[in-house]
């Protein structure tokens, strides 16, 4: 089964761990593509587009810094590829990366694969989904609508300020974590427990990991007579 095989013939792999890249090479091969390992150090962020070639897909590991492969994260690299309509998958090992390191780029990441879930089927399905989105635009679950975002908690995670927010129109009971830097500088001073903002959110997302936020703005004051009484 090689769903994406017609449109993608080779896949470039960027992983900071040589063994992990080697394993991915075999998985890519099994999926029916020609694997190419892009060695470390990977090209600088502004040079990444030079890797783009016809009928070529990409697999980026999210954390590229531990093996001294790049100063950026895979999520940012996938977002750059997305902007240039190049199909790219992101692989992550640790769920905690999704909240902060990946969330800010999530709108430009059509497919995020857990390392455990990677196999030939997942790669083919992933590339097929990616190509579809690049061709037809995002599916319903990745389309944004204005939503009220309520701050539940402000804390710090590995030195970075993070917010736990509730998006009631997505799930009124589940808090989602995101970095404070996703809010425009001017709004940050207004952040406190219980403060509300409006943002464009893909409220059709199935899980909190898939949620992304854009265009944060001040929430208008509630009207005393909103017609709901």
């Amino acid at each position, binding site marked *: 089964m090689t769903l994406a095989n017609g449109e993608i013939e080779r896949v470039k792999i960027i992983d900071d*761990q040589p*063994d*992990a890249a080697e*394993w991915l090479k*075999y*998985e890519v091969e*099994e999926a029916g593509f020609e694997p190419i390992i892009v060695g470390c150090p990977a090209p600088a962020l502004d040079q990444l587009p030079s890797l783009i070639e016809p009928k070529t897909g990409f697999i980026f590991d999210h954390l590229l810094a531990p093996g001294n492969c790049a100063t950026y994260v895979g999520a940012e690299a996938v977002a750059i590829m997305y902007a240039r309509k190049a199909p790219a998958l992101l692989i992550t*090992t*640790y*769920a*905690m990366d999704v*909240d902060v390191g990946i969330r800010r780029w999530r709108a430009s990441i059509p497919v995020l694969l857990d*390392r*455990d879930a*990677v*196999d030939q089927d997942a790669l083919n399905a992933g590339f097929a989904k990616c190509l579809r989105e690049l061709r037809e635009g995002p599916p319903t679950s990745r389309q944004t609508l204005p939503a009220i975002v309520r701050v*539940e*908690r*402000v*804390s*710090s*995670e590995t030195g970075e*300020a993070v917010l*736990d927010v509730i998006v009631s129109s997505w799930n*009124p*009971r589940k*808090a989602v*974590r995101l970095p*404070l830097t996703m809010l425009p*500088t001017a709004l*940050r*001073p*207004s*952040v*406190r*427990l219980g403060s509300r903002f409006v943002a464009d959110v893909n409220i059709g997302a199935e899980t909190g990991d898939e949620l992304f936020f854009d265009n944060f703005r001040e929430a208008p004051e509630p009207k005393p007579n909103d017609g709901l009484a």
Partner: protein
Amino acid sequence: MTQPHLRFATDILRRLGEELIPHPDQGIVELVRNAYDADATTCTIELINADQPNGTLRIVDNGVGMTRGAILNGWLILGRSVKASHKLTRLGRIPVGEKGLGRLAALRMGTIAELITHPKAERGREYRVVFDWDQFENAKVVEDVPIPVQGRKAPKKVKSGTTIEITNLRSRFRRAEVTRLARALLLLSDPFEHSESFKPILIAPEFADIEARVRNSYFDESDYHLKAQVDKNGQATAVVKNNDGRTLYKASGEKIYGDDGPYHCPPAEFELWVFILGGERFAPRPVGVTEIRSWLRVVGGVHLYQRGLRVHPYGDPGHDWLEMNLARTRSPEERPSTNTSIGRVVVNDRENELVQKTDRSGFIENDAYRELKRFAQDALEFMARERLRAAEARREQQKQEAPHDVSEARVVLDEAIASLPPASQPALRAAFAQFDAATAKRQALLEDELRLYRTLATVGTTSAVFAHEVRKPVTQIEKMAAIVQRRIAKRLPDAADRESIDKPLDLVIRSAKALRSFARVPITLMQRNKRRTGHVTLHEVINEVTELLQPFLTESQIDVKPELAHEDLLVMGSFAEVQAVIANLFTNAINAFTARPTDRQRQIRIATSVAERNAVLTFADSGPGIQGISIDDIWLPGYSTFERGSGLGLTIVRDIITDLGGAVSAVATSDLGGAEFVIRLPRVEEPE
């Protein structure tokens, strides 16, 4: 032939005026700032019937007034970015300079605006300019409406100054607007200095009330006073004093700015007065905490003064430009918030490095502004760091002094007993000896518990690190074995040959999978986001823990039977707490099954139900039951009947359940044959 030139439709006046600057107080403040530039010492703002339709606003100052030339070449030109002059005014002020768009917004607040000015430079002259905004409504372009500057002889004895009267006000000034305006005017000229050199006065009852609160000065009651400066070379100094004026901490240079280096902003001063608003702290003082709170509510926050005048909106309610509240939320200890402090950043900015935004919503965030903000935030950080260090030292000292305090108390007690009649002394001594023994036992238990917690915390973090690191290679082993298996299947046609390699590879894959599952346990339990307090869905936790521990359960051949209520049960707490309860009950059961095997089929039943306002969780197993220890003692820390047990699992269960406002009880032998634990937790109703 007339050269064509750019013209503006009259609509542009609305866009640049009331639409750009929607709050009238900002426009009025700009007129008052013009009065400051004109060397006025007073500026009176009067609202006449302004709470009714078609009211009037009058602004009168005693400045130097304007000549015809000043009106034509300055006041009537809107939007020109007037650079502040290096030349001081006659009173030694640095002109603040404005673009005039706030002025436009203010003048357009009514249908007619009239300016009457008496220039000091032309004694006995009066100039009058009238804007009839209806004329602009009917005109096509702005230039079509002439604005004559009428000059005439001034009435006798009129002193220099300017009066602006705006009539037929389009909106009413209600209490909220007047209060906002009063606060803006009172804070406009630095109230920290008690300077009377420029005094805007609003004639309105709300003003007196707010003025009384603003003018109240409680600076002497502050607990900490931070004073920081940055000079023209970007070098900074900072000093923190206590309530007695004694220097507590001071620093300069890189101890403030750190690795980011000196500041690239205009020279500035930052002062902050911090109040510890605990009732106890204020008890011995003449001023009540309520008064201070009320004062801080009006004037609190860090205000920004440029050339002696306040720049809106820094320090306004909800505009925490130094992100003090955010910093406090992230690390609350020893940090001030905008509700517990008042401060000012004063900058003269002779080089015009700070540029105000056109809509009067503060400065453009250029490098100079960002660096000024960095300086103030670094000064705050310096103070927080030093206070935290001092708090830590205080705690350490208290810890050191605690045994000494106990010995002293013991001496006092012995003396008190010795002073009693000899007959009653032995009984009292015996009673206190018994009390001492009980206290010592309890303390020994607590210390033992603390040591155990520390050890287990170390084990926990270490195993999480190990699990974290092991996950990637283990996944690779499993995946590579599967690839090898598939490739062999393609290349070895003989089934027997394939099987001889397939079977060991199956074992490799199964072992890697098991290892990966085991590695997931500490990582999942340590997940930071699970420690957030909120509503927790009991069933979600039960399902996750059961799935997480499945490899252990499978290995021990334990069958788990969930009997969960149909409705979702919500409790208040953190996912991690509820997870720890269930994980510990599972571990306890697994230990029981393996430590004392029985002939019964290994089963765990987790049932949930609702009883009144409680969610009830029953956890029963078919193991050996509670043996060799009384039911009451199973909760004690360090007590375990299993060789491999830490003796802390059930203590943790009890402590967490108590913290969550619930109760836990145990039954030695349940209908399944083993132990049963019944947990009751207050149930949270589903949100609407």
